[in-house]
């Protein structure tokens, strides 16, 4: 196995991109990544595209070929593969690209993520997203993702005394981070009061506890570590790529207050990287709902189980805190184009480790982690990246 490096990143603006199509978005992100790496299309040997539900969102399947075609890479007949693992599609596309390079199969690979969600109405979008749950045992009987995560939040509050204010602080912090990220869908700062007073979605989760519907795309260029300096002076190295699965249904899990796949993927990642949680300087975690971030920072090992809410309210996960989490604004404020999120997380960490994160820069960041969840935790993908 070879070591792998990221030598180029690109990410579109996230938001309701009415004027841009599915194709426009991945072309834009891909070109940005190629330009950043100084790579020409002719050098690209393989593409991996994370996408959850183009079939429902834009009525287009077979997007592997579409991406290769509209990216102008068809003259080389470059292999192009769509990767799907619900909201972890992006993270898994990154992992697929890394494995392709690490295994010596390819040298220059693009891993991308794309979702165009606003071409359909809210009802259809909700139904598309519900496909990440168990259709027969969850979605078909009325469970939605806000509903499922609300049950996790309720259980977490019951078991550990997590408070409404602690949940709200996740959104407050992430909006504050998003306000410093030019790509973020929401750049407004919010308060604990505004979260608590926002419309109820699924008790105890309110509107501002939930990540939005978003259009966006992101891409990274991967090469063997030994060739990284050919492309950039600031390569970022992949120290670990891990993936873990769990039951697709929430009700079949061991616990409602932990995502075991997160704990397993993290444990494997730290072991592979020969690092500890204390070594991580900055992390992008999967905050599809505020409770998800609290569970993530516990399951990843940054805080004791049950202590995530209090740690957040204390400011330990803010920029300047013990472990800055979701400096991009996270899914909550930066936006959550489901298939693109896992790649965007990597783009954010690469920029942090390069020292290019502007106002949201974590000083001296050398080691970063990404954590991407599919559904309620049926798939988890973790990456550890270093300078």
């Amino acid at each position: 196995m070879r070591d792998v490096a990221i030598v180029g990143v690109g990410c579109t603006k996230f938001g309701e991109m009415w004027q841009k199509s599915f194709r426009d978005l991945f072309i834009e992100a891909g070109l940005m990544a190629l330009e950043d790496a100084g790579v020409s299309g002719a050098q690209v040997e393989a593409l991996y595209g994370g996408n959850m539900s183009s079939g429902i969102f834009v009525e287009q399947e077979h997007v592997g070929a579409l991406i290769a075609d509209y990216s102008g890479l068809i003259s080389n007949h470059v292999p192009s593969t769509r990767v799907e693992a619900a909201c972890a599609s992006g993270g898994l596309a990154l992992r697929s690209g890394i494995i392709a390079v690490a295994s010596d199969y390819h040298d220059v690979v693009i891993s991308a993520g794309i979702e165009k969600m606003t071409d359909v109405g809210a009802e259809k979008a909700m139904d598309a997203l519900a496909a990440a749950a168990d259709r027969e045992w969850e979605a078909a009987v009325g469970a939605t993702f806000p509903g499922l995560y609300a049950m996790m939040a309720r259980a977490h509050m019951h078991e550990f005394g997590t408070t409404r204010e602690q949940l709200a602080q996740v959104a407050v912090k992430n909006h504050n981070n998003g306000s410093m990220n030019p790509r973020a869908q929401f750049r407004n700062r919010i308060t604990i009061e505004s979260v608590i007073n926002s419309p109820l979605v699924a008790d105890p989760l309110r509107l501002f506890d939930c990540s939005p519907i978003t259009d966006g795309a992101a891409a990274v260029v991967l090469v063997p570590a030994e060739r990284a300096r050919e492309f950039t002076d600031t390569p970022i190295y992949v120290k670990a790529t891990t993936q873990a699965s769990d039951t697709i249904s929430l009700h079949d899990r061991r616990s409602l207050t932990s995502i075991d796949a997160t704990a397993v993927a993290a444990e494997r990642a730290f072991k592979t990287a020969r690092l500890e949680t204390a070594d991580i300087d900055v992390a992008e975690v999967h905050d599809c709902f505020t409770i998800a971030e609290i569970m993530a920072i516990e399951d990843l090992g940054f805080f004791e189980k049950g202590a995530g809410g209090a740690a957040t309210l204390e400011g330990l996960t803010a920029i300047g805190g013990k472990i800055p989490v979701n400096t991009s604004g996270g899914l909550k404020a930066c936006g959550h184009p489901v298939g693109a999120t896992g790649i965007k997380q990597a783009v954010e960490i690469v920029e942090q480790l390069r020292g290019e994160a502007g106002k949201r820069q974590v000083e001296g960041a050398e080691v970063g982690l990404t954590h991407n969840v599919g559904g309620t935790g049926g798939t988890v993908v973790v990456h550890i990246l270093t300078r």
Partner: protein
Amino acid sequence: MSIGITTYGVYVPRYRIRVEEIARVWGDDPNNIKKGLRVFEKSVPDRDEDTATIAVEAARSALKRSDLTGADIGAIYVGSESHPYAVKPTATIVAEAIRATPELMAADFEFACKAGTAAIQTCLGLVAADYIKYGMAIGADTSQGAPADALEYTAAAGAAAYVVGKNRVIAEIEDTYSFTTDTFDFWRREGQQYPKHGGRFTGEPGYFKHVLAGARALLHKTHSKPEDFDFVVFHQPNGKFPRNVASTLGFSQRQIEQGLVVEKLGNAYSASSLIGLASVLDVAEPGNRIFVTSFGSGAGSDSFIFQVTEQIGKVQGRAPAVAELLADPVYLDYALYAKHKNKIVF
């Protein structure tokens, strides 16, 4: 000889339903709705009122203001997205009611909320070409909003009739400009009871794009600036959108206030900007200049510049003013509202 509006008339049904009452039924927070939409209540037609009857009321009110009779009218165009018949014109019903038949051009228009202003442009062309002496353009709607849809808070009823001619002009039409694209923001297919819409897509790529582009183009075309006008009226689907475009374009609160009727009327669709304009004409003085931009989903905007003439005093006060029509309403609860809107009886 200048061409312009020679008279105008408005009709608003007397019934209203408050935001609080609709929010009570659906479990929404009324303060959030009022803050978000800046609408407090909306008009509701009586059970026996439809677009044809309210268009007739507005047409009669317009004639009442002037010395014109139905026989003077050479064309009637009724713009609406709630014509009572899919096949069979509303315009002929209005024409018979005001005795404008049979030497008459007539048709129904549909362009979402801007069909009424499109009818004004058509009359302007016919009068300018000397095909007719007077043309009547009507915007009228008893608009539909599905139960529990966000539209239900604003979809209102109202009608406005404008006669365009060369004689006895009360407000000269200095210029007009339209901006049109094919944009799928709001629609209702044949046979469907309620319209569908693209949520927030109706905002930026719909309303704001077309209203701002149309207004800017007419300002540019006429070398005008916002401060050249005494009043400005925009299509008002809610209280927020017209205020936003006014401030984006550089118009002041003082310029928009008189023509902003949505808070107590709701969105009267094809009549929305035309009732706003009528509210301005109710108080306008000779020499005042008025800037108007309507918007219709689908999508397009019609912009106009009017200059009020010395004749304005001759029509003011001869028929109910918009402020009078909005005063003294009868409030309905949701059950009566559902009956009035044929949601529980057919």
